[in-house]
């Protein structure tokens, strides 16, 4: 096998998988998802600890991805749609029985999580959120019911494990880990309710949308900011697909502080865990 030879090769060779990649993988296994700037700091520390010369971060990640592809893992880079910060996540690329085991959840807990995902994705007016009260009340309604208290504990665990995010207003939204790792599942299961950003083609649950009801164009906040000219907040800008004039204020998924849906205010977009 390949691995055999690699151990004997010069560990300083940056294009080969070496002790720095190994330690960085351990870091990613423990973090799962983190800001890219933090990941680069960790990479610095890793290089010091393993005594390996620092390489270009992207090249370093590419070497890892080439190796871990075999075991259906990948380091995926993305942008946090809530705060526009670059992030990196370790994800399973295959969702089979074995991948299911990777979760620390019981089948019951998974059923609850799936239900919450459904309610978030299918929320009215593309709110992509669920209130704490509604979420807690779902537990007892399951086929194998769990109590409200158990639901509450489970929600805390899901937030802790970075699957869900709790906004300051007490609403739960998808954490970036869910967006990155469960994207395929969500797109397949809730076809029509899941939108992709026209710019980056990644799933989007908070951003700007076309004023034309029938137009499917959605943009991440950061993608929209990059696409539309800075100080031109008016009639001049148009939807890239249907040419309807684009209103920067026409937002969804709790991005707009003034918008109200379902009679619940959708203000604070910041999460409790920061």
């Amino acid at each position, binding site marked *: 096998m390949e691995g055999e030879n690699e151990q004997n090769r010069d560990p300083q060779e940056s294009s080969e998988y070496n*002790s720095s990649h*190994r*330690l960085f993988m351990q870091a990613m296994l423990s973090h799962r998802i983190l800001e890219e700037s933090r990941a680069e700091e960790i990479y610095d520390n890793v290089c010091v600890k393993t005594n390996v010369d620092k390489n270009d971060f992207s090249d370093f990640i590419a070497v890892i991805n080439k190796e871990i592809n075999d075991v259906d*893992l990948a380091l995926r880079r993305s942008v946090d749609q809530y705060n526009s910060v670059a992030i990196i996540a370790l994800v399973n690329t295959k969702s089979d029985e074995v991948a299911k085991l990777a979760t*620390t959840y019981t089948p019951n807990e998974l059923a609850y999580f799936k239900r919450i995902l459904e309610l978030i994705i299918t929320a009215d007016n593309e709110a992509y959120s669920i209130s704490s009260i509604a979420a807690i009340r779902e537990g007892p309604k399951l086929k194998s019911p769990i109590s409200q208290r158990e639901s509450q504990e489970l929600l805390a665990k899901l937030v802790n494990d970075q699957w869900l995010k709790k906004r300051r207003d007490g609403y739960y939204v998808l954490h970036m880990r869910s967006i990155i790792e469960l994207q395929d599942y969500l797109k397949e299961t809730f076809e029509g309710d899941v939108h992709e950003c026209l710019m980056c083609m990644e799933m989007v649950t908070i951003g700007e949308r076309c004023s034309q009801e029938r137009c499917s164009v959605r943009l991440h906040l950061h993608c929209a900011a990059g696409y539309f000219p800075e100080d031109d907040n008016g009639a001049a800008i148009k939807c890239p697909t249907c040419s309807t004039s684009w209103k920067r204020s026409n937002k969804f998924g709790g991005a707009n502080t003034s918008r109200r849906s379902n009679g619940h205010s959708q203000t604070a977009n910041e999460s409790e865990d920061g």
Partner: protein
Amino acid sequence: MSTRTRRRQIQASERELDEEDYAESSTSTSQREAKRSRLPESTYDEIDSQMTLEQSSQDLERKVNDTVRYALACEHRKQIIRRDDIAKKVLGSSSRAFPVIFEKTQKKLRHLFGMELTELASKEKPTAAGAKKTQKAEHKAATSKAYILRNILPEEQNDPDIIHHTDEEHESTGLLYIILALLFVNEQTMDDETLTAHLDRLRVPNESESFGDRPKVLDGYVRQGYLARQKLALESNQSDRAVFQYSWGPRSKAEIPEQNMVGFISSVSN
């Protein structure tokens, strides 16, 4: 042998020369079928066995990769990895290939993650009461067929700035170390009442924000293999309730070298 058959054989061997790398090329089924109809039986078998070999080596790779993922998943939950579970949940029909797959899995775990599967010490029953049973068991079970995934990178690389531990993990580890230290200085075992008294004295409350329900916490340590718990046989039990005896679990023995524990204890007493 008829002339016709011979001619076919000659044709076939010529074709074989042309297509030596036949088995490696990704020939479609229809092409393969077409060739079959022109080749004699013996050549079918040859090709078949080559195909099977290739297929089985791919299959083997797949099983190795699945075992790697299974091991990572179990360790994530701090669940003990059992050979039976690997055979049942991952290998399925190819469970006879376990030794080969295990070796390749180890190589891959070491290479990709700097980790390896470590077999846990088989169950010992530390009490006098269990002695009769144990003697038999010791002879029988030389290996536990249970593993944990252990970090084999140099200890100085296990830096909190690199490897992340949640607050709960820190709290849980802290309490565990205290219990392990208590057991260590008490000649490796302690009954539940004494342990509880110690925890009370250390103000580890029965129920708390950070540790949760104390019996549950202990159950967790037992499940993860950090602590071993054994019910004392009645004859050595003078009280009227069931008495349990705690000792170091197999995971603790595998993960924590004795001198680390000595270091930990002496760092407290100094």
